């Protein structure tokens, strides 16, 4: 690629980010709180989906630990951002650990700590577990997620156990959410286009061959796993400071399953696919609430069935697996070039259509 083309691409990326910034500015000031909440969830889900796609799609490690890492991030950030008075109120069953009681940090520090702690745990878990392959790795990481839930339920003096934490300051807004999402996207794009990204993909394609090419499997797998855990931790922290209430049952396997669904729908190994599917799914998740309420068709009334949304999602998943095996994007990316080509094709088609009547 020539320098001019590269500069051109950078300019376009900056342009897209500026447009997104304008939209966020408009949304934060004009939309109602329900819509803002949904947009925030979009940003968080983009981060989480990319986190899971890094291990599952790019590195070929079928990990299901997302919810566990989110929990670590969420609790870290909650404990760091909650003022001591609020903590006092939360811990009425048994008092909180004194050292944690007086901890307080700005949101940015809390976010970084949430990510780092999740990454550290990710590395510690990954070191022994990453020797496993395929289904075995999936089961081991799934087990880890469950263990985190149990641990957090029983560490009364740190996490307030099953009662959860309430009154977490709602620092998460669209600016935080989307700037972190954009940072994640840009960071992963450059990482995956670098030599390290190629090494990850080589491991996904053929571990034995990758190792024979001098790639240290342990180092690269741990690296991918830790980065993925870091992002999941940040996502969890954003979630905690958005919802203001967390408890251990929030971070169950069902959440990982939702994120996994987004990864598969978007395409394992596609960043733009993950962005699209995370956005679409998050919005649909809310839009489909309509099917859970009572529908009056005039001649017949369908009673509202809670959980109908998940039935619809399951059907979508089955359809994707059957008809769109590689998700929306497969392993491809939506780039400016493909977009431009599509627009050109569309325009030339339109041009032909406009000319046709005069010919006929």
């Amino acid at each position, binding site marked *: 690629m020539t320098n001019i083309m590269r500069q051109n691409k950078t300019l376009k990326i900056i342009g897209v980010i500026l447009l997104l910034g304008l939209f966020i500015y408009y949304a934060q000031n004009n939309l109602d709180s329900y819509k803002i909440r949904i947009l925030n969830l979009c940003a968080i889900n983009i981060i989480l989906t990319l986190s899971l796609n890094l291990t599952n799609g790019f590195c070929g490690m079928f990990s299901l630990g997302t919810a566990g890492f989110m929990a670590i991030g969420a609790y870290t950030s909650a404990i760091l951002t909650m003022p001591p008075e609020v903590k006092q109120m939360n811990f009425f069953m048994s008092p909180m650990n004194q050292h944690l009681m007086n901890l307080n940090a700005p949101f940015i520090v809390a976010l970084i700590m949430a990510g780092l702690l999740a990454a550290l745990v990710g590395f510690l878990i990954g070191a022994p577990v990453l020797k496993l392959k395929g289904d075995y790795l999936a089961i081991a990481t799934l087990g880890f997620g469950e263990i985190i839930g149990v641990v957090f339920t029983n560490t009364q003096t740190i996490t307030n156990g099953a009662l959860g934490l309430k009154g977490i300051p709602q620092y998460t807004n669209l600016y935080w959410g989307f700037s972190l999402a954009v940072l994640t996207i840009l960071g992963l794009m450059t*990482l995956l286009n670098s030599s390290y990204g190629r090494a990850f*993909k080589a491991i996904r394609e053929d571990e034995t061959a*990758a190792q024979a*090419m001098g790639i240290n499997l342990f180092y690269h797998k741990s690296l991918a796993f830790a980065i993925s855990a870091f992002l999941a931790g940040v996502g969890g922290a954003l979630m905690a400071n958005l919802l203001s209430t967390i408890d251990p049952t929030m971070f169950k396997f069902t959440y990982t399953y939702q994120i996994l669904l987004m990864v598969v729908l978007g395409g394992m190994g596609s960043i733009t696919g993950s962005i699209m599917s995370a956005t679409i799914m998050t919005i649909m998740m809310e839009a489909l609430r309509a099917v859970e309420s009572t529908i009056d068709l005039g001649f017949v009334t369908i009673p509202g069935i809670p959980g109908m949304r998940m039935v619809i999602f399951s059907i979508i998943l089955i359809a994707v697996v059957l008809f769109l095996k590689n998700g929306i994007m497969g392993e491809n990316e939506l780039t400016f070039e493909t977009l431009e080509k599509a627009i050109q094709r569309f325009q030339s088609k339109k041009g032909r259509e406009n000319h046709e009547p005069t010919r006929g």
Partner: protein
Amino acid sequence: MNLLEVKNITIKFGGLTAVQDFNLNLQQGQIVGLIGPNGAGKTTAFNAITGIHKPTQGKVILEGRDITGLMPDKITKLGIARTFQNIRLFSNLSVLQNVLVGHHLRIKSSPLAATLHLPQYIKEEKQMIEETKELLKSVKLDDVQDEKAGSLPYGKQRRLEIARALATKPKILLLDEPAAGMNPQESQELKEFIMHIRDEFNLTIFMIEHHMAVVMGVCEHILVLDHGITIAQGTPEQIQNDQKVIEAYLGVETDA
């Protein structure tokens, strides 16, 4: 001094002895062949040298350094690269990327520097791409550099696998049946190709091959393995006239 010395290697899988007392000395610039009937333990011996299997007994010594039982990636870094019997390319990556992966082991930039595209990394990447393109040109794959590796015709896939191994800048190249599935025309080309890369990249080559025309044509020294035991070694002429080798391949005539 011998470049590579394999001393009395024995590899056992449970009760099965796959290779017994295997010895090998490679001198700089040699092309040595390893032949033998199916299941003789040729690939197992390869795997012991490249670190995929840890030998039960014996030593592998590279330039005076004991490398027995090191991890495969470490051994590749020390200068032994290999190809596989059943082609193992990164099929979904492009030809260029496949070879670039072979350069990754020398990377000095940290993952963070690579993510931020710091000048140091950009310089490294640029050099990698330049070297890769040069390598692809010398193995005549530069016209297909952007195609997916999995979509290449068979002969080119074999050549790409060798090119990828060459990207690690090995001293010794181990080829596991490079001519498997090739027609006479292709195997003739392969013969010339092996001689060409040996001279151009200053290599020492150790290869497993069933294709006798190829083995006899390029190898200066040949070892014959049968049921894990080295039954003969010598020049191609000696091997061709060796009674034991003929028996191993064709069976022994028994009197009725």
